[in-house]
């Protein structure tokens, strides 16, 4: 089986368009979210550093900046987890059906 041949069949298969649309949309949306979170964090540091120094509780020393910073790290882990979960499940299933169906 030549790749060229099945490549042509795949590109005409409606499942291919569905896969690409779903996965690209999801990947770009998550990328935008990561960029928003990260550059949002940097912009706050650059322009409103005082906000991050707000204490969490009256008289305490822990500031709001700490949970926010750790939150950015955890959000990066969580978003990669979400993507892998959906890609290794739904998207891979779609890919498999697509390749089977184009043979």
């Amino acid at each position, binding site marked *: 089986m030549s*790749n*060229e041949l*099945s*490549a042509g069949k*795949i*590109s005409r298969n409606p499942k*291919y368009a569905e*896969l*690409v649309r779903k*996965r690209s949309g999801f*990947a*770009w949306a*998550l*990328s935008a979210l*990561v*960029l928003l*979170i*990260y*550059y949002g*964090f*940097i*912009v706050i*540091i*650059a*322009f409103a*550093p*005082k906000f*991050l*120094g707000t204490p969490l509780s009256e008289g*305490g*020393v*822990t*500031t709001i*900046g*700490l949970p926010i*910073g*750790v939150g*950015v*790290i*955890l959000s*990066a*882990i969580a*978003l*990669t*987890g979400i*993507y*892998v979960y959906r*890609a*290794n499940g739904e998207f*891979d299933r779609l*890919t498999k059906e*697509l*390749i089977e169906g184009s043979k």
Partner: protein
Amino acid sequence: MRQFSVSGTIIGGAALALLPTFAMAAGDLGQAQQQATNWHAIIMFIAFVGLTLGITYWAAKHTRTASDFYAAGGGITGLQNGLAIAGDYMSAASFLGISALVYGSGFDGLIYSVGWLVGWPIILFLIAERLRNLGKYTFADVASYRLQQTPVRTFAATGSLVVVIFYLIGQMVGAGQLIKLLFGLDYVYAVIIVGCLMIIYVTFGGMKATTWVQIIKACLLLAGATFIALAVLVKFNFSFEALFAKAVEVHPKHLAIMSPGTLVANPIEAISLAMALMFGTAGLPHILMRFFTVPDAKAARKSVFFATSFIGYFYILTFIIGFGAIVLVGGHPEYLDATGKALRGGANMAAIHLAHAVGGDLFLGFISAVAFATILAVVSGLTLAGASAISHDLYANVFYRGRTNEQHEVMVSKVASIGLGVIAVILGIIFEKQNVAYMVGLTFAIAASTNFPVLVMSMFWGGLTTRGAVIGGFIGLAAAVILTVLGPTVWVDVLKYPEAVFPLKYPAIFSMPLAFIATWFFSVIDNSEQAKREQAAFEAQLIRSETGLGAEGAVAH
């Protein structure tokens, strides 16, 4: 003395020093005094070397084909690869450097940790599976997939080698200084030991040995850092508020350590640095190469998830370690120099002294051995990536146009590894007394402005042509190098001119968009027949990158 102060370097304006490699330690340990021979550390390090040489022997017996050598036969699992990637990323400098930064300025350390981490989700969402589906051994396979092999591979190999060499210099100089400090070994011997061991790992064991050395080191580093962080938290009954309160009380800056300080004073600089960190990671050849060691796109995705989790966890640990050092090391005369203000051995020693404070001599030896192992593992990965660029891209595909056999290619790769090892040792000795802190920033800026734009355009933009990729890529490379040289880190700090020609320390905010625009422009004005064929071939490439159809599979064993 600049050499002995991380915070001095940073407040002096060079946050650069905190990039995730060894250059920072290199710059800051520039005149490290040789310490008394540390036998605990040496014995544990010998145990590590013995174990890894055993693994190399095993790997050598199972390394026969080019696929074994470059990509460990595609037989690495997602979890293993995730650990290996995390190992490549968690250098001794990020361990010692970030904890030292937290020790010196508190909250600011977190800003850097975040910057190094957020590149990973982007790599996962946009690059990892396409890379796995299109490539075989090097990222040049992907960049040249539908373009002319000779010019594009020459460009990609140049980009890879430049990144690898600059990165290696920083690592070697840092290794020599750190080992002198921790083990009491002479600088030159330390550099030669690192060079010899990495040559052995890479030439005999290829990617299999390199990956396992990286995995073992990652586990040791994570275990060691976890132990230190737990030991600190136990002393405060796991109350972060109590730990922070004590730190604020004893730290000379008091409450200021709980909020952003002077590190990110200039927003344009901050964004430029953030761009280099985020996108440079996706252009590092030794990182990209790891995606070819797993059997399929599914495992490639998993490996990024594991890597991100381990790296994120590690950065949170270094934050706790930095605060632990403020409380348990700062103000304790046994860890301070004669003035009673600076840490003995330099600010980078915060985590090392803390290891002693919570675990005594034996644990200090363990952490020192892990720091040495970390350097070894990172330089091995770099050497393998550089050797692959020489053998797979230049030798096999440029000079012999694919008309050579696997045995020759692997042999050339081994010779190239030895050559790179020798060059690394020589450069390490030449640069011993130099401040090489700028090299890390340069490495990331080059990776973000050279390899990354061409890789992304080749994957996502059908209009890309050979001419566009090569001219645009070289413009990005030239811009990153020239702007770094004209910027404050080289023009003022190294060449000692009074004023920088280019005002920013991190050029990525200019050099990276410039590379994208130049690549686009020279592709659009390319009306050759060749260009039309290349553009027409995009659809087939896209289908393979989206579905994995025809992708390099795992090699049966």
